[in-house]
């Protein structure tokens, strides 16, 4: 009877997880879906605690209390701009739990482990261990404890793949000789090292793909745990997580027109040789916030294109205020969000939601790309590669083929940017040199705050329009050295 009750709990939990994810299909049902998933988790935990195998509760309580305290503190105090880091480190926690359960199971059963059980166990600890270090690496890069630029050295891919082959070799041996304890640990050590090597050459802009991939690995490690301890709810939940991570990483790499292999082993932004300065000087036209305010005041329609620079400058609230001011003046304002803008899938959406921008205004490229040509101003805030026309027509560019936002088709393009540094891919952006492009240099948040102030003044003193200032022409070298900073 007791087992039926437990199985009933697990079955209900599995169904509730699926319903929970289904709820996420629309913003209106998302929170209700989350409640389903929470109830599912509660059922699974209560069912397990009633299970006969558990005889001592005091240590469990210690773990649950500490874990809840840390988890709640992170959830409450972590700023939204730190969300990519939080996601990265949570993959490490999940994978750590799976790996430790695998190690414990191995030692409880070591002389009596069959080949099939060892296969599941091997997957569990191998995927788990490489996800632990991989996620910690991703966390350190996003938190800027480590340089976010790709770190590469000679024979790196050779070493990574070699190590992977060695680890799989040990795995294969263990399947037939499960009692080889030292080898089990050697395999875990190899897994940990592979995790480091795998994420070391990944640069900031490729993080969305890697985070999604680690999400998938963490899920698969949970599913493998389910096989090892013979628990179906773990298999279902792990499979859901694995599928989600897989789908997201596919979507992200498609949005960059790159393959998985290219993201993992391509190290874009590091190995690219320095571009040769062509000798010719090109000019950009530098405008002041006053010019920009004048332009925006006249605009009937504005599309805002945010990028990672918005997150760095924490400019989401200033952008939201600008959008509100423009809407109050009667302009149509929308946001064009590229799937890989930022450091994780959906990064820009979360930040703009935090700043109270209604989600109806946030558009995907397919929805909005045709509207740029009838738009007065495309306002680009801290984005670069996702609006680089080189992706369309420059065959030798690393960006070539990537679907971009057609911001260059707007009547006026306004770019808020710290400097003329090329984006992450190291490709100079033609768009900045065009006649219709207004470059406003400076910290995005400071510029936007100034803009908002000016627009409010105009509103206050009716009749006194801002006079356009003569633009300052500035000669700069055609190609600056590729830097690996924020696009």
């Amino acid at each position, binding site marked *: 009877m007791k087992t039926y009750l437990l199985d009933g709990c697990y079955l209900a939990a599995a169904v509730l997880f699926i319903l929970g994810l289904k709820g996420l299909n629309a913003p209106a049902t998302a929170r209700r879906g989350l409640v389903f998933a929470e109830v599912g988790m509660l059922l699974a935990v209560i069912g397990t605690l009633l299970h006969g195998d558990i005889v001592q509760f005091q240590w469990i309580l210690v773990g649950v209390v500490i874990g809840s305290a840390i988890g709640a503190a992170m959830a409450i105090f972590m700023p939204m701009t730190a*969300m990519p880091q939080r996601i990265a480190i949570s993959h490490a926690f999940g994978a750590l739990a799976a790996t430790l359960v695998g190690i414990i199971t191995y030692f409880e059963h070591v002389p009596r482990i069959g080949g099939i059980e060892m296969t599941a166990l091997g997957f569990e600890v191998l995927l788990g261990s490489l996800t632990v270090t991989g996620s910690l690496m991703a966390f350190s890069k996003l938190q800027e404890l480590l340089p976010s630029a790709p770190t590469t050295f000679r024979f790196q891919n050779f070493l990574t793949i070699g190590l992977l082959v060695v680890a799989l070799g040990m795995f294969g041996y263990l399947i037939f000789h499960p009692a080889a304890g030292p080898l089990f640990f050697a395999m875990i050590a190899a897994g940990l090292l592979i995790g480091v090597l795998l994420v070391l050459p990944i640069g900031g802009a490729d993080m969305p793909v890697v985070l999604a991939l680690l999400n998938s690995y963490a899920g698969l490690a949970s599913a493998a745990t389910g096989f090892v301890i013979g628990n179906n709810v773990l298999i279902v939940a792990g499979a859901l997580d694995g599928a989600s991570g897989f789908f997201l990483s596919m979507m992200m790499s498609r949005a960059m027109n790159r393959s998985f292999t290219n993201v993992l082993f391509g190290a874009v932004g590091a190995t690219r040789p320095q571009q040769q300065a062509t000798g010719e000087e090109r000019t950009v036209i530098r405008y002041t916030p006053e010019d920009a305010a004048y332009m925006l005041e006249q605009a009937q329609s504005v599309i805002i294109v945010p990028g990672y620079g918005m997150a760095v400058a924490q400019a989401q609230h200033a952008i939201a205020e600008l959008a509100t001011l423009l809407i109050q003046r009667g302009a149509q304002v929308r946001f064009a969000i590229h799937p890989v803008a930022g450091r994780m899938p959906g990064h820009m959406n979360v930040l703009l939601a935090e700043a109270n921008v209604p989600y109806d205004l946030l558009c995907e490229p397919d929805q909005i790309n045709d509207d740029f040509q009838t738009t007065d101003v495309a306002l680009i805030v801290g984005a670069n590669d996702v609006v680089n026309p080189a992706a369309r027509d420059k065959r030798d560019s690393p960006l070539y083929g990537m679907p971009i936002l057609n911001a260059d088709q707007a009547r006026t393009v306004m770019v808020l940017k710290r400097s003329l540094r090329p984006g992450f891919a190291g490709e100079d952006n033609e768009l900045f040199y065009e006649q219709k492009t207004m470059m406003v240099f400076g910290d995005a948040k400071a510029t936007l705050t100034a803009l908002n102030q000016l627009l409010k003044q105009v509103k206050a003193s009716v009749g006194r329009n801002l006079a356009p200032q003569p633009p300052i022409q500035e000669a700069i070298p055609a190609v600056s050295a590729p830097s690996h900073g924020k696009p």
Partner: protein
Amino acid sequence: MSTISIESLYILVLAGFVGYEVIRHVPPLLHTPLMSATNAISGISLVGALVAAGSNSGVVATVLGVIAVTAATINVVGGFMITDRMLKMFHREAPENQRQRAGGAKQP
């Protein structure tokens, strides 16, 4: 450790397909909450950790088990809480606009 049946493999594959089909329809708008929600759900390894920490099979098993319980609980509790915090922020219309529409324009 139980023997692994072929049924478990069926469950894995079918659940993977269900997951893919369900998740395919999640709009990009909600991709970050999706990641953090699936992360919380994969904290289900907590179930395995609970058994490992509570089955009284040696000091090492208990210590590692408690660490595993802690790590998984961080994901479950933190994951669900932060996903909810995020989802709470998504709304259709800015509150200021609603106020304005209700009570006339006011200087921000």
